[in-house]
């Protein structure tokens, strides 16, 4: 029975890995192909020209813009989501259901309706391009960060903070020395999601930027709309995968370094990037 389970586990793992790697395989082949005729199963000539072309003038700027957009959205939506989640979790607002409904409305409504509505507001207020796009994307990212942090606060024990206060910690010290470390995995997860919203956005950037604000997704879409651009599209897509993958690995390493294995399994609150252990009940 145990052996059958082990075998099933291995098979499941192989299927999962194949599931994730299968789309990447053609991307890798195309990105590394200098010459690849349709009849050959593999490229005839390999090289780094396609990847290098991504960082050519225009491409590099688009990557930087996407990075800036993802970072800005993460930097704004993560703390905002954390604050809203705390207010909701600790019931510091009178009608939490109403607040939750308003927050999650952008997810429930058609994205075009939301973006067009906000587009009008942003244009009327003369908000500069990058800031306008970032702010609209924060609205889109906020439900995700709030949801993640709300789940974290549901298993977060405020008694840790009370204990710290009776030990002499000011509210600032409690925030930095207790709350932040305890919620770090959830915050990292929320920041990751928010970054992805900014990093991979196409519609908001296109509508608000009017085609003048070129980011990596705009570039990918533009290249993909033409024919014979498979190597370029593949290289752009691989580059688009790099930052999120790098963030995941860094977060995992940091988590491993900051929190010892046994404590990790004991009482870390909230969902994290790699796992979601749960702490005991709230105070």
């Amino acid at each position, binding site marked *: 029975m145990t052996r059958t389970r082990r075998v099933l586990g291995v098979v499941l793992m192989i299927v999962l890995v194949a599931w994730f790697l299968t789309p990447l395989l053609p991307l890798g082949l195309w990105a590394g192909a200098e010459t690849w005729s349709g009849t050959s199963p593999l490229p005839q000539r390999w090289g780094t020209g396609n990847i290098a072309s991504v960082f050519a003038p225009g491409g590099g700027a688009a990557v930087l813009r996407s990075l800036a957009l993802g970072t800005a959205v993460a930097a704004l939506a993560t703390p905002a989501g954390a604050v809203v989640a705390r207010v909701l979790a600790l019931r510091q607002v009178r009608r939490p259901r109403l607040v939750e409904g308003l927050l999650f409305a952008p997810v429930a409504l058609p994205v075009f309706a939301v973006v067009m509505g906000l587009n009008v507001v942003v244009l009327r207020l003369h908000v500069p391009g990058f800031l306008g796009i970032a702010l609209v994307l924060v609205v889109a990212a906020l439900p995700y960060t709030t949801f993640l942090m709300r789940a974290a606060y549901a298993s977060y024990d405020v008694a840790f903070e009370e204990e*710290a206060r*009776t030990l*002499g910690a000011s509210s600032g010290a409690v925030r930095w*020395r207790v709350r932040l470390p305890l919620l770090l995995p959830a915050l990292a997860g929320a920041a990751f999601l928010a970054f992805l919203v900014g990093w991979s956005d196409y519609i908001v950037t296109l509508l608000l930027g009017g085609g003048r604000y070129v980011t990596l997704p705009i570039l990918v879409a533009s290249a993909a709309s033409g024919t014979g651009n498979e190597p370029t599209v593949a290289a752009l897509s691989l580059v688009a995968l790099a930052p999120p993958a790098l963030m995941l690995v860094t977060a995992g390493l940091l988590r491993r370094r900051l*929190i010892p294995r046994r404590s990790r399994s004991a*009482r870390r609150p909230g969902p994290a990037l790699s796992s979601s252990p749960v702490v005991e009940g709230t105070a």
Partner: protein
Amino acid sequence: MSATLTLHGLTRDYGGPAPALSDLTLRVPAGSCLAVVGPSGSGKTTVLRLASGLERPDRGDVRLDGASVLEVAPEERGMAMVFQRPLLFPHRSVLDNVAFSARVRGESRRRARADAEEYLDLVQLSGFGSRHPGELSGGQEQRVALARALAAQPRVLLLDEPFSALDAALRAEMHDLVRKVRAALDPTIVLVTHDQAEAASLADCVAVLSAGRLVQHDTVDRIYSRPTSLTTARQMGGRNEVPGEVCGHHHHSVLGSLALPVDVRPPQGPGVLVFRQESVQVTDPDAADALVEGTVVASRPVGARRLLTIEVVGRAMTPHGGCVVQVHAETPPGHPVWEGDRVGIRLSPHALSVVPEEIGAKRAHTSGMPPRKSEAPVRSGRVSSGP
């Protein structure tokens, strides 16, 4: 280090049918240990939360050495609290948990850790500093929590049922540790517990709370021997309640006319005689000094001892109870008494106390039922006296 804590007229209302705490006034002298006991929901934890500043009272004052600290933030009151759960910070090692208060005071990491080592040594956990909370047992975690609170050098140490989640052996160890800490550091301690034995074991004084009100505040000895209410007697584990009438300096009941101790001066009229089951001596039914005789109707072990329920049949119905009363007695090991045995009961006059009757608080110890018709013969031989 230690300070006198005074709670004056503390009231806290959460909007329920009754306030969580009503007009509580208590004084805990510097270096003493007060145990606050009471059933769940009696307001015990609220006392600590108001004292520590984690909550603000609706009315009343909290004073340290006579000075009000009501406007002082919790972190500046100098009252460290140990909760029921250890609440060790999982992202810090044991040593850094204990060093936490020194770090937030601005001490260097090296100095804070050096001090923390001393407190770990005090709770007999030297060498555990590099471990993380997840690597400790429940008892060790609570020891670290105690060390962490002591390292904050509090003027008052607040303990909120810190040992209730531990098994009996660990609890006894922790009690020894608290005694050691008291001897070494002489802190003022307020201990909240629902365990009357723990309160008696650790505290100098006990405050009994019921429904948010202070019922009695007295020394451990007096709270056991001279309860002022049925609530206190029951909260402290007392089982014997005999309704009757106080006339002169005697209590008249199914047990007869019993002279009261000189320091017990209840008002004349109806009153409930209370005495501890440990103070009841079980004798041979024919013993000359037996107060009354009765039949053992239940016998169950309480650790090494046995708790007997003895049914005593009065000679006549009394106005304040039936003609049958149940008396509970604890007997030491080695004195087998069985259900159905007839035994005599002896009561020490000093163990008696009288409290007012409480409406709706009647226990099933007495009844207006007539005596049981079938009375089993004595199976054992002579029954020697109890403790």
